[in-house]
């Protein structure tokens, strides 16, 4: 059998996959290892037959793998070390351009990270609410008057009776939740702070997915109960279980009421656009700053959901 016919092209070839592995493993520009293997392969093919030579070739390549991988890693590391050294020397030789580059690149990377985080926070804001796609806020636009003459101003408020009226008159609006905040004084035992209290309709917890650590969302309908955030629970009660404890709340109009903690919210998810510290039922506004809830001059935030 002649392996090298007259035109110089061999009649048999080593196994393709093994040859490919070999050329990948041995990162030698001139491929001398592959040449050695092929020469030996040809000798063996002449002596013992092509099939045997092919199996020999496969076995040899397989045996070469662990050693050559180590070899690749060694030279790779060596080159990396050398590149690093050259890089450091270049930095040391061109101090001014290098520092300009480093400062500029750090500023660029830093600002893009900051921008990314900002946009991420903006785009995921309030996303944890389960039906976030079905929550709308009624707004209104007014003339800006003195502050910005000729301009319009947008407000997120609407008249207090508007929510219930919308639910009653429009069948496609199936729920409305009014929400208002006010500054109050809160006292528990011997500590007292200025706090922000929120008034909300009973549907609040159906519309917004603020998880409760303990208690039931239905206490929002109980006029003598208050729902507090976990932060406020720690602030006023420390490690104690606040459920059932009493809080003295002094409203802006001077009314003082003793309210019982009916539920405690879990720590609010990151990205909550708005949250509450103390939450009571909306009817409580009657005791505090409204004579009746049909006053179209009184303003509130009204969220509604569609069917």
């Amino acid at each position, binding site marked *: 059998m002649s392996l*090298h016919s007259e035109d*110089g092209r*061999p009649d048999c070839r080593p196994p393709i996959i093994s040859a490919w592995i070999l050329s990948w493993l041995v990162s*030698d520009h*001139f*491929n*001398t*290892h*592959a*040449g*050695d*293997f*092929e*020469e*030996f392969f*040809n*000798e063996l093919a002449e002596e013992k037959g092509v099939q045997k030579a092919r199996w020999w070739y496969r*076995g*040899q390549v397989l*045996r*070469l793998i662990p*050693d*050559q991988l180590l*070899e690749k890693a*060694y030279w790779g590391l060596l080159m990396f070390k050398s590149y690093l050294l050259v890089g450091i020397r270049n930095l040391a030789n061109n101090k001014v351009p290098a520092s300009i580059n480093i400062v500029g690149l750090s500023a660029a990377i830093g600002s893009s990270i900051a921008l990314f985080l900002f946009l991420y926070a903006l785009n995921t804001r309030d996303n944890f609410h389960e039906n976030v796609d079905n929550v709308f806020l009624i707004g209104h636009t007014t003339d800006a008057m003195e502050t910005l003459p000729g301009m319009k101003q947008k407000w997120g408020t609407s008249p207090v009776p508007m929510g219930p009226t919308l639910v009653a008159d429009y069948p496609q609006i199936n729920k409305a939740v009014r929400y208002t905040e006010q500054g109050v004084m809160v006292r528990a035992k011997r500590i007292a702070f200025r706090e922000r209290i929120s008034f909300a309709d009973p549907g609040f917890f159906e519309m917004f997915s603020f998880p409760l650590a303990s208690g039931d969302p239905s206490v929002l309908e109980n006029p003598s109960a208050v729902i507090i955030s976990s932060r406020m629970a720690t602030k006023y009660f420390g490690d104690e279980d606040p459920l059932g404890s009493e809080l003295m709340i002094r409203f802006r109009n001077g009314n003082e009421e003793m309210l019982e903690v009916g539920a405690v919210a879990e720590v609010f998810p990151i990205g909550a656009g708005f949250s509450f510290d103390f939450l009571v039922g909306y009817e409580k506004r009657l005791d505090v700053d409204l004579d009746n809830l049909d006053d179209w001059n009184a303003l509130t935030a009204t969220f509604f959901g569609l069917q």
Partner: protein
Amino acid sequence: MKLLTRPEEYVMLAIWKLQNDAYSIPIREQVSKSTGYEWSLSSVFTPINRLSKKWLVTSILTKPKAQRGGRHKRVYQLTPEGRQALIHIRTVEESMWSGVKGLALIGGLK
């Protein structure tokens, strides 16, 4: 100086003996013949790689040949440091073996 390992020593001796034709296949043949068992090509490359890292062995490229799939041949040579290392290990071995009795060569000394 750190001593060479056995495979390194054998491969270097083979390179030295083969002189201008010292590439992997004759090296393998030489070493297999002397040790009496078949060395695979990869087990020749392992010590050669190690020796080149230690700069005891260098290589030159020869012209490509059709027999080798049109590839170059890498012929190895000892560097002066390599020769020093061989001399060193020979000195060590001869001093280790000197005065050893009762371990005659098979068939006796010729």
